[in-house]
C-alpha cells in the first residue's frame, strides 16, 4: 500500500524525534567519558567534549591510587550482594504462604502488609528505631531497614498463585513438608519473578545513598554513591561560593583537575550498571509487566 505524503512526513518527523531523544540520552555519558580521559587544560574548556586528541588516564590513576574508591567498591558490592540475597529470600518466603488460600488468617497478614504501602512512621521514627537497635554505622543499617516492600510481596504472591498446584501436590504425596516444597519445587519454578525482584533489588542497592547518608555518620562505611556525592557537592559549593564573590575560592589550576576526576568518579559509579543493564533489560520489562497485569 502506498503511503500518503502526510504519512511519510510523519515518519520522517517521528524518526528524527526518536534519534534526538537517543542523542540527548547518550550525549552526557559520552561527554563524561571524554572529559575523564582529557588532559586538564582540555577538560576545563568550554565545548562539547566529544573527542580528545591527547587521551590520558591520569584521572583514573589518581582516583584508584587512593584507597577510598576501593573501599567504596567493597561496601557497595557487599551491601548489594547481601542485601539482594536477603531481600529475595525473605520476600519469597513470606509471599509463598500468602499465596495459599487456606492459610490461617491470610487476610489479616495480607492486610497488614498492604497497609504499609499507604502509611508509615516516617523518617525520624525509622531513624530512631535503627538507632535503638544499635545498627547505626554498621552495614546492617543499609540492608535490613529496606528489606521487604509490600509491592514486591504482592507481585511475588500473585506469581505463586498462578503456578499449577498439581506439582506441589505430588510432592506432598511423597511426604515433603511446605518448607521443602517451597525451596525444592516452587522456587525453581519461579525463575521469572525471582529474576525480576533480584534485579530490582540489585539496582536499588547499587544506587542507594540516602540510607548510607543518614545511618552512617563516622564515615567508615562509604559507598560509591556517597563518595560521588561528596565530590560533586564540594565542586558545587566551590562554584557557588565563586559566584557569590567569596574570596579565596579561586581554584584555577586546581579545578581543572577536579573536572576530569569528577567525571572519572561518576563513570566508575555508573559503569557497572551500564555494563549489566543491556542483559537485565528484558527481565525488567517482563517484571514491570508481571507487576502491571496482576499487581
Amino acid at each position: 500500500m502506498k503511503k500518503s505524503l502526510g504519512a511519510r512526513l510523519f515518519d520522517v518527523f517521528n524518526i528524527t524525534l526518536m534519534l534526538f531523544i537517543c542523542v540527548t540520552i547518550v550525549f552526557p555519558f559520552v561527554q563524561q567519558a571524554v572529559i575523564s580521559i582529557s588532559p586538564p587544560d582540555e577538560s576545563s574548556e568550554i565545548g562539547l567534549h566529544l573527542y580528545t586528541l591527547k587521551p590520558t588516564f591520569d584521572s583514573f590513576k589518581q582516583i584508584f591510587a587512593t584507597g577510598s574508591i576501593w573501599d567504596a567498591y567493597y561496601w557497595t558490592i557487599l551491601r548489594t550482594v547481601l542485601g539482594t540475597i536477603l531481600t529475595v529470600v525473605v520476600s519469597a518466603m513470606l509471599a509463598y504462604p500468602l499465596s495459599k488460600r487456606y492459610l490461617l488468617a491470610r487476610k489479616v497478614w495480607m492486610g497488614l502488609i498492604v497497609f504499609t504501602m499507604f502509611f508509615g512512621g516516617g523518617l525520624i521514627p525509622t531513624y530512631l528505631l535503627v538507632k535503638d537497635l544499635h545498627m547505626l554505622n554498621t552495614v546492617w543499617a543499609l540492608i535490613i531497614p529496606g528489606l521487604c516492600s509490600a509491592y514486591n510481596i504482592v507481585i511475588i504472591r500473585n506469581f505463586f498463585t498462578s503456578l499449577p498446584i498439581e506439582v506441589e501436590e505430588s510432592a506432598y504425596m511423597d511426604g515433603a513438608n511446605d518448607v521443602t516444597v517451597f525451596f525444592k519445587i516452587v522456587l525453581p519454578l519461579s525463575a521469572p519473578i525471582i529474576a525480576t525482584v533480584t534485579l530490582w533489588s540489585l539496582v536499588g542497592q547499587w544506587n542507594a545513598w540516602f540510607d548510607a547518608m543518614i545511618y552512617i555518620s563516622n564515615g567508615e562505611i562509604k559507598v560509591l554513591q556517597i563518595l560521588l556525592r561528596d565530590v560533586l557537592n564540594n565542586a558545587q559549593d566551590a562554584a557557588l561560593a565563586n559566584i557569590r564573590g567569596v574570596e579565596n575560592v579561586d581554584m584555577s589550576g586546581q579545578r581543572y583537575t577536579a573536572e576530569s576526576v569528577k567525571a572519572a568518579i561518576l563513570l566508575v559509579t555508573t559503569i557497572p550498571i551500564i555494563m549489566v543493564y543491556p542483559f537485565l533489560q528484558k527481565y525488567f520489562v517482563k517484571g514491570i509487566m508481571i507487576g502491571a497485569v496482576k499487581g
Partner: protein
Amino acid sequence: MSTMNSELELNANLSPKKGSMMATFKKQRFLFLLLLPGLLYFFIFKYGPMYGILMAFKDYQPSSGMAGSPWVGFKHFHEMFEMNYFWTVTANTLKISLLKILVGFPAPILFALLLNELVSSRFKRIVQTISYLPHFLSWVIVAGLIFQLVSPSYGLYGLLCDIFGWKPHVLLGESKSFLQILLISNVWKEIGYGSIIYLAAIAGINSDMYESATIDGAGRFKQCIYITLPSILPTICMLFVLGLGGILDGGFDQIFNLYNSMVMPTADIIDTFVYRIGLVEMQYSFSTAVGIAKSVIALVLVLVSNWIVGKLSNYTVF
C-alpha cells in the same frame, strides 16, 4: 480448575473448617515458619516506626526516651500550621508535583504511541533500550551529569552562551531555571521506563480492530485516537491515581541532589524540610509532626482522586 483446587485442599486436609484454629496452625506450622522472618520484618521495621508517631504529641528528649518524654498534645501541629515556612514548603511541594504530573505524566504515553508508529522494529528496539537507561541511574549520578551540562563555565550551556552571546547564568541558582531543570531532567530520566507499561497495553490490543478500521478507511492518526487511546485508558487511569498518591512527594532524591541555598525558597519541599529540621537540626518531634501531616494529606488525596477518576471513567484502583 477451581473444583480441582478445592478437592486438593481437602485432600491435604488443610481446610480451616475441619478443626480448631490451633489444629490448623499446627498443620500449617511449616508455612508459618516461612512466614516468620518476613512478618517479623514488617512488625519491627514498618509498624515499629508507627509507634514512633507518638513523639509528634510529645516533647521527645533522646535522653529520657519515648516513655519518659512529656506529652504536649497538638502543640507541634499548632506550631506547624502557624509557621509561614511550612505553608511555603507545602506550596512548593504541590507546585513541583503538579508541574511534574502535567509534564511528566503524558510524556511516556506520547512516547509509547510514537514508538508504536515506528515501522522498523529493529530501530524501535534500539530506541527502547537507550531510553530505559537513565531510569537505572541514581539521582546522584544524574545530578553529576546535570552539573556538567548547565555549568556556564564549561558545559553545553556554556558553549551555547559562547556561540549566541548570551549572558551566562547559574541555572541551578535561579528559581525559574531550577524548576525547568527539575521538570526536564525528570522527563529525561523516566520517559523510556514509564512507556513500558503503555507499550505492553498497546501490544495487548486485538489487531482485528485495526484491520477493520483500515477497511473502513481510518488512517494511522484516527486509529490512534479511536482505538489505541481508548484501549489503554484503564492503564492510564490506574497510573494516574497511583501518581496522585505521590503528589506530596515532589521527588526527594532529585531535589536533594540538585538544590542549594540560593533556590531554597522555591525548591524546598516537605520531604527535604523534614530531613533538615529532623536529622540536621534534631527537632525530632516537630519533624515527625510534619511527616504525619504529609502522610495524612497524601492518603486523603489518593482516596479523593480515586473517587474522581472513578466518577469520570468508571474505573477505580481500589
